[in-house]
């Protein structure tokens, strides 16, 4: 079980977490992660995220379902902003629910690593020197690759 939402409008992470938590009786652990847009010392005025409606949600849902299966999650929620996002605004919200904390932490960690490196978004950074398209960093790829190395263990 998982849910993926893309939206141009800002979201309230507290309200999302309350909604995700409400009514759960079997889950002993819920982990949430909020990704924020950094201003990089004032040089970034906005991020612009381009998505392919339908295609992008399906790809992320595949990652979420893999996280659910791999970490025995009860549920996972991914909410991602698209369009123009200002520094200081949340850009992504991930929540996972599991029987115990380790699965919930690892499920959220796994999901974020895959979102950062493999999700079908195209990201433009609006900077003082002009707009610039950005690709995943070497660190983003390394973070995602460590789950392949761990796969035999879990």
């Amino acid at each position, binding site marked *: 079980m998982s849910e993926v939402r893309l939206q141009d409008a800002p979201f309230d992470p507290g309200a999302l977490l309350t909604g995700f938590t409400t009514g759960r009786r079997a889950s002993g652990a819920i982990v949430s992660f909020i*990704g924020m847009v950094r201003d990089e010392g004032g040089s970034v005025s906005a991020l612009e*995220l*381009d998505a*392919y409606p*339908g*295609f992008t949600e*399906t790809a992320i849902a595949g990652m979420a379902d893999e996280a659910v299966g791999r970490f025995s999650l009860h549920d996972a929620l991914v909410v*991602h902003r698209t369009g123009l996002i200002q520094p200081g605004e949340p*850009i*992504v919200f991930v929540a996972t629910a599991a029987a115990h904390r380790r699965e919930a932490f690892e499920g959220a960690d796994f999901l974020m690593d895959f*979102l*950062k*490196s*493999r*999700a*079908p*978004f*195209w*990201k*433009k950074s609006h900077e003082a020197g002009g707009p610039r*398209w*950005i*690709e*995943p960093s070497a660190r*983003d790829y390394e973070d995602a690759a460590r789950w392949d190395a761990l796969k035999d263990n879990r």
Partner: protein
Amino acid sequence: MRVLLFGPLRDIAGWRERSFDPPLLTLSALRARLTSEDEALGEALRAPAVQAAVDKVVVRGDCALAPGAEIAFLPPMSGG
């Protein structure tokens, strides 16, 4: 048929979505048409890292296109 461009391809072409009527019959014919209209876009589309999706499914090589197909050209993805 609808053609969609994403990411940097939009900046190169100056458009994000176009309709083609009459439609092109194959992906290679569509690529040739786009290249004949805009050599810079054609060159960008030939980059090995640019994928094509037909009706939201990534395809490799050439393929036949239905008249109502939605073709998307996807440059390397940035992640979220």
